[in-house]
């Protein structure tokens, strides 16, 4: 293995003069300025609330949803408390009740997630034995005007759907 000689800069007269380097830098910035001034579409930023990002990956952990059976649109959740147990932030509150159709023996009467407490770790999804809770809605910004708006109940969680931007394989 040969020795690589690293060129030292800053010793030549041109480097010590410092002004050519400044002129070079100023040329770069002004090129960017005029490129963007001529056509604002060249800017790398997007006008966020009107234009939404479309490049969110399928593995992005967004707001939760409760999955549903395809035949009668009832919840798959069997109220086993696995997600609430796994949750490091203690933000899942489940109230169980007996289920009388042949899907399962238990169902959640109420299923609440406090998203102000939630750390979006995805452990609930990992823990679920029935694939009943998922975080594939692609919702990355949830806004509300009061604290109660951030506690999603069973109805809200079941209303969420898989993001249309994600692939369906």
């Amino acid at each position, binding site marked *: 293995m040969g020795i690589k000689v690293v060129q030292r800069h800053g010793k030549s007269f041109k480097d010590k003069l410092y*002004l050519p380097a*400044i002129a070079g*830098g*100023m040329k*770069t*910035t*002004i090129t*960017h*300025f005029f490129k*963007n*001034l001529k*056509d*604002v579409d*060249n*800017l*790398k*930023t997007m*006008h966020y609330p*009107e*234009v939404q990002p479309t490049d969110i990956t399928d593995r992005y952990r967004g707001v939760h949803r409760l999955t549903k059976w395809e035949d009668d649109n009832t919840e798959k959740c069997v109220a086993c408390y696995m997600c609430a147990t796994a949750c490091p932030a203690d933000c899942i509150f489940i109230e169980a009740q007996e289920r009388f159709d042949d899907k399962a023996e238990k169902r959640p009467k109420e299923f609440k997630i406090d998203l102000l407490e939630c750390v979006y770790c995805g452990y609930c999804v990992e823990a679920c034995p029935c694939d009943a809770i998922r975080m594939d809605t692609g919702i990355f910004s949830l806004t509300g005007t009061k604290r109660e708006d951030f506690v999603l109940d069973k109805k809200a969680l079941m209303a969420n759907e898989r993001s249309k931007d994600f692939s369906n394989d």
Partner: protein
Amino acid sequence: MNIETIIIIIVNISLAVFLAVGLTPVFVWWERRVSGFMQDRSGPNRCNIGPLRLGGLIQSFADMLKLVFKEDFTPAHIKYKFFFTLAPAIVFICSFLTFATIPFADNLVINGKEHMMQAIPNQLGIMWFLAFAGLSVYGIILGGYSSASKYGLLGSIRASAQVISYEAAMGLSIISILISYGSIHLADMVNAQTGTYLGVIPMWGIFIQPLAAIIFIVCAFAETNRAPFDIAEGESEIVAGYHTEYSAMRFGLFQVGEYSAMSASSAIIVTLFFGGYHLPWLDTATIQNNINIVIIALIVLLPIKVFVLTSWMKKNNKAIGENVSRLKETKILTIAFWGITVVIVSILALFLVTGLGTNGVNIATAVIQIGTFLAKFFLMAFVYIWVRWTVLRFRYDQLQMLGWKVLLPLALANIVITAIVVVVLGS
């Protein structure tokens, strides 16, 4: 004192106030948008009054309102509240007064009486600038010292050391300029910059004294405490330097002081080195003798400029998604710009038809020269912002090295060379 004198004094003073203080929101807006465009992002552009955003200009007014209405908080540990309050006022007043001797146009002759077109009509010129530019650092030192915090003190010590070292080189570079112009009065200096070399290059200070120009511009950057010489603020090292403990409008005064120092420096650089209020190749007498040609040129140029501006707006101020308020804004602004253009062009055409008379020609010349000065001034202010977002901050030892070991000897050598040339040529 007759009515013309009073009107001219009022116009001059309000022009100085507008350029020194009133332009702060505009420069803040430039700073944000220009830096954004240089870094391929858009900068603040949402703040609006109805459909009017003016490209984000409203944001700086909103910020100013916020500063005015914030609580004016004085930390409990500050012993000398009077000095703490006085410091931003010193910075502000000094940077503001620097503008007083900048000539906006050539001496205006009305009914045979000459009027100096500057806010305070005196002959002090460059000395006034040096005095007040140097004085404004007292406000920074006092602010940092009376803050009674380590960061504030560090910032003010840095500021004082920096200003002392660069004041020396700046003064010496000014001496060589004084030798070649032979006057300290700024209007005389500007009038010395008329004419051309070889009929092509305008005889501006930057071509007569290139070395002094570079030294002076570098020192003027250091004097205003802006990047690359903003070690007094140095937010990555000492929080915010001298204004760490300040909030609300006292901080706002520091901010306004910084921007008015910037405008004063760009005005003085334009005056000393870029021909001041003179259009290149056209001195005052030429404009006065050919006023009709100049007016015709303006009548032709103005609609072309407005056409370029409005078509740029139409291309770039588009609707975003469902939000069509920007289209409405474009429509309003296009109508406004064309309305103003039509009014100005018809007034100019009226002048062409009726003729102006001696006083009218003199006033028109003064207005054209003020316009020229403003154009150069805004360009120089843009260079300030451009440099700030290009060049990195100097380390403290590099800064002192540049000041004492490079700029000072160069300025001294420049004095000697200039003096020899002046003596040999006998001018």
